[in-house]
């Protein structure tokens, strides 16, 4: 192999490792507490949902921002402290307990938000005599909001539940 090819392949390897994907495949990815980052998609999604409920002319934009929040939230569990089911990483009893508590908090939040969201949309639609299209946009945005909560809340809960342990 020529020197040029060796250097090229070495650089490609380095670039691939920088993405973190090879480490993930080996179960050696670095996980960190995400105490503040999950608040960004959470605030964005909540704000967008409320904006859509208050302003009829911004309902479409609200929906678009909720889907954007969902897209941001999808990335969080990859780097967050919770180890998912089926990961090649070592998942011990502490990880399972942490994941159990965090998922429980997530499901509780999603359940409450679903109830409040459905009744709020229904109530406001009846009171404000909303057109059919606006109701549909709101109902389309709510599942994405709930999915965002489902991704963000467990990561947020787990990130605040643990303190880092220094190496000995």
């Amino acid at each position, binding site marked *: 192999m020529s020197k040029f090819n060796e250097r090229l392949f070495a650089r490609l390897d380095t670039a691939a490792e920088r993405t973190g994907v090879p480490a993930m495949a080996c179960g050696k990815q670095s996980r960190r507490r995400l105490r503040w980052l999950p608040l960004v998609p959470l605030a964005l999604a909540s704000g967008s949902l409320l904006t859509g409920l208050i302003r009829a002319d911004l309902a479409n934009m609200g929906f678009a921002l909720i889907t954007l929040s969902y897209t941001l939230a999808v990335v969080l569990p990859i780097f967050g402290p919770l180890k998912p089911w089926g990961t090649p990483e*070592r998942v011990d*009893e*502490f990880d399972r307990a942490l994941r159990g508590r965090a998922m429980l908090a997530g499901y509780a939040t999603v359940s409450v938000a679903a109830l409040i969201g459905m009744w709020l949309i229904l109530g406001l639609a009846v009171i404000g005599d909303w057109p059919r299209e606006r109701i549909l946009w709101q109902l389309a945005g709510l599942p994405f909001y709930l999915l965002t909560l489902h991704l963000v809340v467990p990561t947020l809960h787990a990130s605040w539940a643990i303190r880092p342990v220094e190496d000995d």
Partner: protein
Amino acid sequence: MPVIHNRIALFRAERGMSRRELADAVGVNPQTIGYLERGDYSPSLELALKIAAQFDVPIELLFSFQPFESVATALRRASA
């Protein structure tokens, strides 16, 4: 839930074991040993028994509902 006190750090220091070595021996992550030592997490009976077996001591020497006396106090009491 009652707090379970432990002397894992003391036994580990006495045996000259790192967290990683103990963690590998009992099949957990090194951070979990750190959380146990700090009292942030109470182990399952299985893990507690594995750690006690690793140090070759009865489980009540490692874990207790009552706080353990410090090494200095124990030494003072022994020398008195």
